[in-house]
């Protein structure tokens, strides 16, 4: 451990504004945030209903048997938009949200590094490389869970909205046509490999999800680190819900192939209840991280963009070790000011120097015997 140099800059007067700090936006009252959240939720739900009506060709392609699922997605849209609005209204998220989108829409940024954003989306959102740094097993299980859920969502959401249709001129196949919004996309033979994949996509998704969720459930019961602080409603219910959805979905296929439809109606209701519950739960529990995770891309893009300005990193005022980009530090200082954490100047010292300076102050002013 080396001593920092003796050339630390004196601190500015406490009331001097941070250089280049973004001015604090007008404070928002909780009532105003709630009002905006309800408006956003209502607008997104209304748009989804309109998209369902138009996409299903004025409900001609809408499958009324899937109505509970479609209604649940409308509630889901309301809940996600509502919570998202509340979330991005908090000072920390609001500033990062603005900086992220500013970087996203920056034409200069796009010209300089056109591949940066797609690469970040693939790395953080698709392959979730950061999870591999936490644990290889968790990364593998999460990939199974993630791709299983993505596949299931891509199939079921458009189906429940009446956007996808599978029709046969002969009534019972094997030649089928797949249409999206009424437009023919492809024709296939139900007995071919493609046909099997088309009709068993959800079974494949269920197998992926069961494998991933089972690992996480096992970990939640065995891993002492995971058990610390875990909560049933937050950590276990989502895994149980995913497994119930997948198992009941597979049982539907089992019933139709091996039981000639025995118990199908009961299983269909059980499956529907588990899916509807999970969709409505998404905005309120652990699944909201699906909506939040893109913020990681926004944050990385913001830091990446400010690094490319060729400015030197902001260094600790005492030891001159790098802290982060000047834009990032100013953004944080702005956030702290918004929150009335008026020691934002402290953000320009590295964590070690903060501790050492506190230790020095204790030595000097509190307990000289400590020396």
């Amino acid at each position: 451990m080396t001593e920092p140099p003796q050339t630390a800059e004196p601190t500015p007067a406490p009331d001097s504004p941070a250089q280049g700090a973004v001015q604090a936006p007008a404070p928002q009252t909780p009532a105003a945030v709630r009002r905006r959240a309800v408006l956003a939720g209502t607008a997104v739900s209304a748009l989804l209903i309109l998209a369902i009506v138009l996409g299903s060709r004025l409900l001609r392609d809408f499958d009324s048997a899937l109505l509970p699922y479609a209604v649940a997605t409308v509630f889901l849209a309301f809940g996600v938009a509502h919570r998202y609005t509340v979330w991005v209204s908090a000072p920390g998220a609001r500033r990062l949200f603005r900086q992220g989108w500013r970087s996203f829409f920056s034409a200069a940024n796009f010209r300089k590094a056109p591949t940066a954003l797609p690469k970040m989306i693939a790395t953080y959102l698709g392959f979730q490389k950061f999870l591999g740094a936490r644990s290889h097993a968790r990364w593998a299980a999460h990939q199974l869970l993630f791709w299983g859920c993505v596949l299931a969502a891509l199939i079921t959401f458009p189906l429940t909205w009446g956007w996808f249709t599978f029709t046969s001129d002969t009534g019972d196949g094997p030649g089928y046509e797949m249409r999206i919004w009424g437009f023919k996309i492809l024709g296939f033979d139900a007995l071919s490999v493609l046909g099997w994949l088309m009709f068993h996509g959800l079974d494949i998704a269920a197998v992926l999800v069961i494998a991933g969720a089972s690992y996480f459930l096992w970990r939640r019961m065995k891993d002492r680190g995971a058990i610390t602080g875990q909560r049933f409603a937050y950590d276990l219910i989502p895994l149980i819900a995913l497994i119930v959805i997948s198992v009941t979905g597979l049982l539907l296929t089992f019933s139709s192939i091996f039981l000639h439809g025995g118990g199908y109606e009961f299983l269909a209701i059980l499956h529907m209840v588990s899916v509807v519950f999970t969709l409505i739960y998404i905005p309120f529990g652990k699944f909201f991280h699906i909506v939040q995770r893109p913020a990681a891309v926004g944050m990385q893009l913001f830091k990446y963009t400010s690094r490319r300005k060729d400015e030197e990193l902001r260094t600790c005022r005492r030891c001159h070790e790098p802290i982060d980009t000047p834009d990032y530090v100013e953004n944080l200082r702005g956030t702290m000011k918004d929150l009335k954490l008026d020691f934002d100047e402290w953000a320009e010292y590295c964590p070690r120097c903060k501790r050492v300076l506190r230790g020095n102050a204790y030595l000097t002013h509190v307990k000289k015997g400590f020396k």
Partner: protein
Amino acid sequence: MMGRTIFIDPGRCIGCQACVSACRECDSHRGKSMIHLDYPDEGHSVASLPTVCMHCEDPVAPCAEVCPADAILVTADGVVQQADTTRCIGCANCVNACPFGVPKIDLQAKLQMKCNLCYDRTAYGLAPMCATVCPTGALFYGTLDELRAERPGVQVADSFTFGDVVVHTGVAMVVPADKVQWPVPGGLPVVEINGRDVR
């Protein structure tokens, strides 16, 4: 009013690093120590300062307040937990906003980690790993009454000044009797760096 918590007495710390080693055994961050042991005047003094999370109560958890992902939760008993692994985006806002320099970050894993008062132990009434192994009592876990039963007349402070701001914490520090009515200086504004006056 503080209940069962950690009391830090830097005057008793001998810098043995037992707390650092024991912290690695905590189930919630196995293999990684979350306690900091610094030598404020290295080369001139043997003084050492152990730093655990102070579990700020007012303003409540600045690390959690600046978190853009709502990843840091404060439990009903006032313990500021480490970042929720599902939510943390690794932005380091908490690392740089914490007035005590406590949180650590793994940039590859996009994950913040910090002392959570050994929640797996303290939630069941056991002392945190660091206080369990500290040979000199520089880190004491218990109530103020229990501390005073062992050290009659000891005074503690649970407020720290950073410039004009006073931060009240859940974890307290031992202070001399004549200093108890004042908040402990947190090091800001910086008036002296390595013996040099920078006012």
